[in-house]
């Protein structure tokens, strides 16, 4: 939530990874649930513009990485639930591996002592 002043913007290009990982961990979730989960897991450090999530979800669906169906939410309302597909699971592995390589590289650069 926006109560913390020093929240970080989601890095460009990492939204796919965050959504796929969230769905992989929790199973089918609606958009609100995904947004909340990302913020909660990041300890409210990541500030997600929640509206941008929906075009991203449609894109992931068009790529075949996630699928969606109508379902009933915790408060008995109709909501669209997204779930990971088999193709999405494979993609998640690729995204995780890539993130690890990038973050390791960035860490290595940051950790390098000043000359």
């Amino acid at each position, binding site marked *: 939530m926006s109560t913390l002043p020093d929240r970080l913007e989601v890095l460009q290009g990492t939204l796919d990874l965050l959504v796929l990982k969230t769905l992989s961990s929790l199973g089918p979730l609606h*958009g609100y649930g995904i947004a909340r989960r990302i913020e909660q897991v990041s300890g409210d450090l990541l500030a997600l513009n929640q509206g941008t999530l929906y075009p991203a979800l449609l894109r992931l669906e068009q790529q075949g990485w996630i699928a969606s169906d109508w379902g009933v939410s915790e408060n008995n*309302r109709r909501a669209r639930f997204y779930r990971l597909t088999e193709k999405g699971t494979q993609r998640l592995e690729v995204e995780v591996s890539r993130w690890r390589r990038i973050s390791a590289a960035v860490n290595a650069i940051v950790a390098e002592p000043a000359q």
Partner: protein
Amino acid sequence: MAFEWLNRLADWKRRKALRARLDEELNFHLDRLTEDFERRGFAPEEARRRARRELGNTTLVQEAHRERAGLPWIEEWARDAVLAVRNLRRRPGYAASMVGMLGVGLAATLTVFVLTDAMLRQSLPVPRPAELHLVTTPDGQPAWFSRATIERLQSEWSEGTVVAYAGDTTVTVQRGDAPARSARGQLVMGSALSGLELQAAAGRLLTPMDDRIGAGAPVAVANHAWAVNEFGSAAGAVGQEISVNRQTVQIVGVLPAAFRGFDGVSRTDLFMPTALQPLLGIDGNANEFSSDDRPNDPDRNRENRVRWLEVLLRVPAGVPAERVTPAVEAAAAPDIQDLISQMSSPAERETLERSTWRAVAAPAGFSYYRSAFTNTGRMLTALVVSLLVLTCANLSGLMLVRTLARHREMGVRLSLGAGRWRTCRLTVVEALVCGLGGALLALLLVQWTLPGAARLLAPGTDLALSLWGSAPIGVLVGVATACGVACALVPAWWLSRLQPLVALQGAMGTGRLPQRLGRVLVAVQLAVAVLLVAVAFSLGREIADVLAQDPGYDREVTLTARFDPRTAGYEYEDLEPLYARLKQAAEAVPGVERIGFSATGILSHSRSASTIYPRGEGLEALAGNYQNEVIDVDFASAVGLRLERGRWFAETDSAEAPPVALVSQSFARKMWGTTEVLGKRMGFGYEPEDSDLEVVGVVSDARINRVKEDGVEIFYVARSQFPAGMGYVAVRTQRDPAAVRARLKDAFGSVEPGLVFGSWQTLGERMESDLRSDIASSRLAGIVAGLALILAMCGVGGSLAHLVTLRQKELALRMALGATPQTLLRDVLFDGLRLGVLGALGGAALIGALAWGLSLITWWNATPSFSVAVGAAVCGLLAALLGGWLPARRASRVDPQRMLKAD
């Protein structure tokens, strides 16, 4: 990637549903966020406000989602198309010119495509036509086999189906007491139609049981269109009895509407079993009408030595076509040996021993029309491509002029931030919209003109013309798109170089290049127009030359007709009285001078040939199959054949007198060179006999088979000595033969109501009919050339009009400084003349290239000559001058004061 685009396409189709889904999801999200804030102690309004802030700008979200759920490029092109339509509507004259010109070009393309497709490419409408193979001689003509060979092939070759049939022919059909009429009939083996896997539209197909001599009542299967025309419906024809060549035949079935005949091009009305051949007396090869030793012998068509059936073999997938030839050779071997044993000529025996065949894939069957149309098809395609090039050059110039005139508007657009690519794309889209309009216009034009074009260019055929199939529409859309893009290339290129600020100041900023380019386009149009005019001139002159030559007979005073007493059921002994009655009836008609008969006639598209052996030392090598004609004593004088030396046939050349012959000059030259031929002898057998013919006269060469033949090697024999059935009547009249045509028809009809006379034509009409395809091509070339000249004229006019518009200030200044209107008129006209000269030179170069290219191919005769090239160039120059006249007049009427004030 492809998967993603497929999904995007699917989402684009259901984009409204996706939009509703997003709205519902956003509402749900907003409500849940509001609830969260309320739980944390915020008042409902404040909670809602904070939730909205958290969710962000929903309009932007919806926009991003819509973009993702749609296909932006399609929508952009659709928006451009709407804009292009609006632009075109603002300038109806320009739009009409674009659409009209493209429509004419595309209509010509579509007509030629549909005709050539129907003539050359359409398969027989049977299952798996690709499996059909025609057995041919090595030179590609269909091979003929005896019935015995076919039966052996059917029993021994188990890998496919054998479909055998005779060539189709004219039969005389009568229903009840109605007048006799002609129809096309064909004898087929009982298994032929089922071998093609056809299904009867009504009744049943023929069976092998129907094809047994004495099997029962004669039966026939009818063509669908013929049955509907005769009996009102396919089902109504089944069970009906008709008289075919005076034999009662019952129609047992009707073929599907799509199947018109074995060659896929011409229509056959009745298909009958080959067992009916002796009864019907058709197919002379299997039943010599004049052969008094075996007239209408029922077993004749079973003889091994009579080869009269063509064969289509169905070679199923997986069976190599190469296996066919050995099977055919094995089946035909006994017949060939039988034939060889009957021959006395070593040369003929050797030829027959070397007999070989091959199976060629023939999914469209075999048609003599098809090979005749190939050259016409090539020429039409070349004409159409030229016309399209010219149209594109013209429209490209027109678009360039219009785009140049809009340079200020374009400058404003670009300055306001319109993308350069988008601006160029708009031009392309505008051209494509015109292309689409042209395509629709072309469809209307072709729908209207196609039957006439088919009659003109492919006479005697019954083509299945499918305008609405996927192939014609695909070609139309493809060519329309290509033309649209081609027209827009030059204007789009200019737009890509336009500097907005310079354009805003009223200049084009690209120097004189666009104008030069426009002039080049006009010169290209003129050059192509000059080329087309030259082609049309050449074709027309060739036909005029051919018609101007002496054909060797009197074309103006002779009326001719075809008839066939065999198909009308006349017996051999009936013939002499028949000819006498016809002669008497004709001579009673005022204006008739003489009447003669012959077996095949002049320009009748039928001929007779026989092996002939000239007698004399060293002449064996000249023995061969030569054309012959049986004529009565009056025929030569009736048609006006010229005797070079010797004598005509006379009443004294009776059956008891020594046989005599007349020979054509070419025949005489071929056989005996420059030596005197009168008194020379020749015979039908290898050894000299008493019945050998003695040459008693030499007839000048005449154009007997084709108007465009140089000299036919033909010999004539007398009907009194060789009793062949006559099939051609020639009536010489004192004045215009067309005037006595109706009375002659009535006279013949009254004395012989059961005999059908067809093709009533004067010899002049026969000549024109023979050249019909050439005349049609020439007329078409003339029309295309005329269109090309008009288009080029428009191109010159448009280009010069633009020039005048761009130079108005300069012209006004010149007039203010003392230039006269005449000077300006002369200058602009001179400009048009320069374009004309450029186009004429380009056209001359193209004509030279064409003449050189055509000298490399054998099928083209009408090579443009120097005088034709000059004539065409003059036409191009005149077109340029005429096109430049209006703009020049406009230039000379510029009001200098008004123009200078406006500046």
